[in-house]
């Protein structure tokens, strides 16, 4: 599966979005700490975390025998650049063109 597909798939689930929100509140949590706030089995949380990890939305750091989960927003910024910023820029460009048409050329103005 494409990297972008994995990110969208990982985000298309309320439980996984909740896990990301929890990591945003407190970064670097263990599975046990994350389970405390989730109303489901440890095994189910593990599976959701694995999908987030595969999509690179969660990064893992081992500290001794503890597996710590970190929110990794880098793929979200890639999506932002690819799917949001681009359209935003066209809209800003359209506004600039409109302004130019209404006000005349923006060159040579004091």
């Amino acid at each position: 599966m494409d990297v972008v597909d994995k990110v969208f798939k990982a985000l298309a689930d309320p439980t996984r979005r909740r896990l990301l929100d929890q990591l945003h509140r407190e970064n670097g949590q263990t599975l046990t700490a994350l389970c405390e706030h989730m109303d489901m089995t440890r095994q189910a949380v593990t599976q959701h975390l694995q999908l987030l990890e595969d999509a690179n939305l969660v990064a893992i750091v081992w500290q001794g025998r503890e597996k710590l989960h970190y929110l990794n927003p880098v793929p979200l910024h890639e999506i932002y650049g690819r799917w949001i910023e681009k359209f935003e820029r066209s809209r800003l460009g359209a506004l600039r063109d409109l302004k130019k048409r209404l006000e005349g050329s923006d060159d040579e103005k004091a």
Partner: protein
Amino acid sequence: MKKPDYVYVTYIATTAEKLWQALIDTDITRQYWVDPSAGCARVNVSDWKPGSRWEHRRVDETGTVDIVGKVVETTPPRRLVLSWARPSDADNDAKHSRVSFDIEPYAGGLVRLTVTHDDLAGDLQMLEGISGGWPKVLSNLKTLLETGRALPHSPAAN
């Protein structure tokens, strides 16, 4: 051992050597290290020898230095560790946090870059700046190395 404050990971289709160069070469850094709040590019300036000073400088007429620190470890092209502080705290080691760049070859022609920021010691202002800054810088870096352009291509720009 304290746990890291932030861990950022990105997979880039490039080589470890090119990625290393992109971290230390100011001609490359200025193309992707853009701080949206300052609206200008930044570069990291140093001779990159362990113990040397490094500076995070704006690329504009002011050349303002926003962050300073020492080079803690240099192992090209695998690992770069820097201390990180405001210029006013340059001589106060207790106020220095720590940034590590780890570069590892990964499957499928990808290189894995992990940026770890430790010892921020609850410095809220710095935490905020960093959590907004790194993801943007790293996603720009990935785009630059993979496409040769720092920012996503916009059809409107044609």
